[in-house]
């Protein structure tokens, strides 16, 4: 049996363990041999996107040491996966790093492209808004992008359609950025918050009870805004919905 290494990004580990647990349980349910290498920390993206990619050698080496042995590496975060795919380099283990870049998957793409999941047996009887995180969508091509003249497809929708009782709501701007953007949310606080407020409002006016997505970081940002507004809308990582019921 192929071995799957579970890559749980640092902020998911610390603040959203439920997204990690749901990912783990879902993969186990699907009959996979899943291991969480306990020596992992972070993919290094927060530093790299801030212009400090040169400081990420240690993170990169740790990542390689933790994950090189697996057949697949799966993570509930499109943005972190994209970072690994595009920027994981090490001097000491260049070949291993190159191999990792080709076998790291975001959860949704792993379920759709590799496992070809057709029947999830999940149940979630709620109105759900899907947030297309930019790095997942435009970087990993999880969904067709509204800017391009090309046939439509959506991997997260393909999975959510298998969830009993779930009603996916329509959005006015289906793939607009929420404004999280890593350290952008701190450095550009004013614009980041305004983007988040607008993103959340689109879900609100269209009757969402939950906002979901394949990137917990965008959801964390929107959750912060929802809570400040005393909104009843909750955020859930897509793994938690696909694992529900």
């Amino acid at each position, binding site marked *: 049996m192929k071995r799957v290494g579970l890559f749980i990004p640092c902020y998911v580990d610390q603040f959203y363990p439920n997204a990690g647990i749901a990912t783990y349980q879902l993969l186990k349910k699907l009959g996979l041999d899943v291991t969480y290498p306990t020596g992992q920390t972070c993919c290094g993206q927060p530093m790299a996107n*801030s212009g400090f990619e040169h400081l990420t050698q240690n993170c990169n080496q740790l990542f390689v040491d933790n994950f090189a042995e697996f057949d697949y590496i799966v993570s509930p975060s499109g943005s972190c996966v994209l970072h690994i795919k595009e920027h994981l380099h090490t001097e000491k283990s260049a070949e291993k790093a190159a191999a990792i870049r080709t076998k790291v998957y975001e959860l949704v793409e792993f379920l759709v492209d590799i496992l070809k999941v057709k029947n999830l047996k999940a149940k979630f009887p709620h109105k759900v808004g899907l947030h297309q995180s930019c790095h997942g969508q*435009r970087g990993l091509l999880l969904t067709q992008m509204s800017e391009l003249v090309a046939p439509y497809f959506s991997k997260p929708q393909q999975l959510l359609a298998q969830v009993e009782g779930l009603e996916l709501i329509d959005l006015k701007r289906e793939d607009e950025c929420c404004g999280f953007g890593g350290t952008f949310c701190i450095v550009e*606080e004013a614009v980041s918050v305004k983007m988040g407020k607008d993103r959340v409002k689109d879900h609100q006016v269209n009757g969402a009870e939950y906002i979901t997505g394949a990137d917990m970081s965008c959801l964390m940002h929107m959750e912060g805004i929802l809570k400040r507004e005393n909104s009843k809308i909750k955020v859930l990582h897509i793994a938690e919905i696909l694992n529900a019921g």
Partner: protein
Amino acid sequence: MSTPTKTHPELSAVFNKDEQRVNWHDETLWWIRQKRDKSAHSIPEWEILREKASQIKNNALANLAEYLVSFEEKAKANGIIVHWAADAQEHNQIVHQILQKHGILQLVKSKSMLTEECHLNEYLEKQGLEVIDSDLGERIVQLAKEPPSHIVLPCIHKKKEEIGDLFHQHLGVAAGTSDPQILTEAARVHLRETFLTRKAALTGVNFAIAETGEFVVCTNEGNADMGAHLADVHIACMGIEKIIPKRKHLGVFLRLLARSATGQPITTYSSHFKKPRAGQEMHLVLVDNGRTVQMGREDFRASLKCIRCGACMNTCPVYRRSGGHSYHNAISGPIGAILAPNLDREKYADLPFASTLCGSCSNVCPVKIDIHQQLYKWRQVIVQEGYATSSKKMSMKIMNYTLSSPGIYRTAGKAGRWVLKYIPFAVNNHFNPWYKQRDMPEVPKESFGEWYKKNVK
């Protein structure tokens, strides 16, 4: 070289104080982005066109020197007087000298972002000349003594009531007028008078054709034509990257330009200039101003493919909510943020960070510039060259220290969660930019790692 200026986060925070205005700015530009989508989707071969345009531009840049020499030769043969300017200063001097030679003190200009980049108006005004911008949007910002906030829609940040006030002050329109019809009429009368009395006209250049030595200017108001056709002297200014190899390539760009910019099938006027009419003098100034330096930077060379459609601005969720002036540069938005650091790294060190790297800009770009990838690369260069703030450097070093060791990471995570849970005011205060308008995440009872240890291993 650098002049102190406020940074993008500071300027956009000011813009965001008026949320209604931000909403209106965002919605207006989004409406244009939607028009662009509709227009693009009506062309089944849209993506092929983009690829073609990208390849033509790659070819043009790879053989730039040859094409420029060929262009100059043909243009001269057509009777155009060709000048070369190494930088903004030289460009301004050349224009000034041409006007001086003819004893002309008044210039009518049709929108040219290059002259904005070179600060030509400021320069000529200091020499005692009068410059009138003839495109409506440009004229409005000129009356307001502001730079354009968008390369295609220069006064998109102004509401019609504000334009009414400006026209009341400067053009004698009745106070309180905000009817676009009346305002446009007033501008038209004022500009007609300008066209009829100016002896020199300056236009930009959208495309210069190496094969024939002719150039094309695209406008919606026809002002370039009115200026150029009525004036004794026509001066056209272009960045050296505006060259395309052959006339047959023009169709590819004309199909893409207006659709990307505003959703129109084509600009109202695509005017071809090949030679001066009898009795007219036609000058063409080819400007470098940092372009050959950018050519030499492999990672950023593709930014020179830009055809100035502004699609990246309209789609950019950050631009829409921060306004063009927050970029404190002639060219704003995502493309401006990759062009500006080429000219002055220190002054524009903030701009590559004014993005979430969402990638929408690269997707709408009609010549397929990898805009968001270049923003990422500029961030690395800017930090390596020492333009990061010391607090940012410090926090990144701490982050690196923490994340380099699983043990330290776990301890720090636990400590952080403990602080959030038991002394939340240590983080929930105004020193924390996250907390200002957002709540912190709720603290879970254990990390994933701790759960895994207990439940799996």
